[in-house]
């Protein structure tokens, strides 16, 4: 039987917090994770703080560029960007940059709920049919695709951990909100992330 291709239309709508927990549970090598504005970083925080997590609080659309910078700086560390669909739409050009630079250690996860959930659930201008995985392929990331369901997501994450990227996984979300909110202390977030990356060492604890 021919394999059924997962598309934006038949991908299962999943729960962002559950997916985030499944991702974090598979990270065993101090992989970096950059959470984008709003609910992607809230659920990353809720999944349990790790020193290698960066929670982005304001600069909408920059989760992928920040993760790209980390990936270029540390080619031996796997780096994951968790970005919302509305946020990606604001900075689509970064997919072309990622494809051109082709960092082997970068994975992009797009959390697509079709709305700007944190500002009240207004629909994004992608409602006309924009397909983020297809856009990513068009930008030069030929293996970009949608996760069919939770088991498929786990399989794809494992593939990202074990093979060279850049990788792109689209995730269709249900309409559930985040579990808690990130503690908004940017300087502390930066300091801890730098220690988590081994880029800062000092005798101060924490």
């Amino acid at each position, binding site marked *: 039987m021919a394999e059924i291709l997962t598309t934006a239309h038949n991908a299962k709508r999943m729960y962002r917090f559950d997916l985030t927990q499944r991702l974090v549970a598979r990270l065993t090598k101090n992989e970096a994770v950059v959470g984008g504005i709003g609910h992607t970083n809230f659920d990353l925080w809720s999944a349990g703080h790790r020193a290698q997590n960066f929670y982005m*609080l304001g600069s909408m*659309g920059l989760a992928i*560029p920040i993760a790209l910078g980390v990936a270029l700086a540390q080619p031996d560390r796997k780096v994951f960007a968790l970005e919302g669909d509305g946020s990606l739409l604001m900075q689509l050009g970064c997919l*072309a940059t990622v494809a051109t630079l082709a960092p082997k250690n970068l994975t992009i996860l797009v959390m697509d709920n079709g709305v700007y959930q944190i500002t009240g659930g207004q629909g994004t201008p992608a409602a006309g049919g924009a397909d983020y995985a297809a856009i990513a392929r068009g930008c030069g990331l030929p293996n970009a695709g949608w996760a069919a369901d939770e088991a498929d997501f786990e399989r794809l994450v494992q593939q990202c951990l074990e093979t060279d990227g850049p990788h792109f996984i689209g995730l269709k979300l249900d309409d559930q909100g985040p579990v808690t909110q990130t503690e908004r202390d940017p*300087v502390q977030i930066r300091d801890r992330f730098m220690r988590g*990356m*081994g880029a800062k060492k000092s005798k101060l604890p924490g």
Partner: protein
Amino acid sequence: MESAGRAWHQIVIDVLKANEVRLIPYVPDNVLKPLIAGIHADPFFEAFTVAREEEAVGIVAGAVMAGRRGMVLMQTSGFATLANVLASLPCAYQIPVLMMVSERGTLGEFNIGQAAVWRTMRPTLESLAMPYHVVTRLDECEFVVDRTIRQAHLTQQPAALILSPLLTGGKSVTPKVVAQ
């Protein structure tokens, strides 16, 4: 300060290397051409174009936090797209993202759009309380660029270096071009 017959762009390259600033994402500008060419020609650097200046700020912020220094190259109009991301990323998180801005819109500008956007640059830098210096003289170029980069890293603050037409010659008015 010794500039030893070096052009401004060679001085900038020497200072970047001395300060271990390797990652150079940029959106091009005509005045920056010799600097961009010099950077691409030197394997010390990792230089590449990006779609928007905002993206470059994110890339350098991520790289700096992971231990690799970088600087974004742009022109004045590019800087004008950045207030939100500068305020909420390098300023709020205290990340030494360096920027080098080729100053268009003044001292002989022929493009009214460039002249209009030029007026927003200093007020934006001032209101962000972001350290910046304008480089106007070849004999001061090394000192200003070097000290600005060092201070940014020592104090964990972003900083902007503005390259004045007084230094670079700017983009000259072409007599044949009446309007653009």
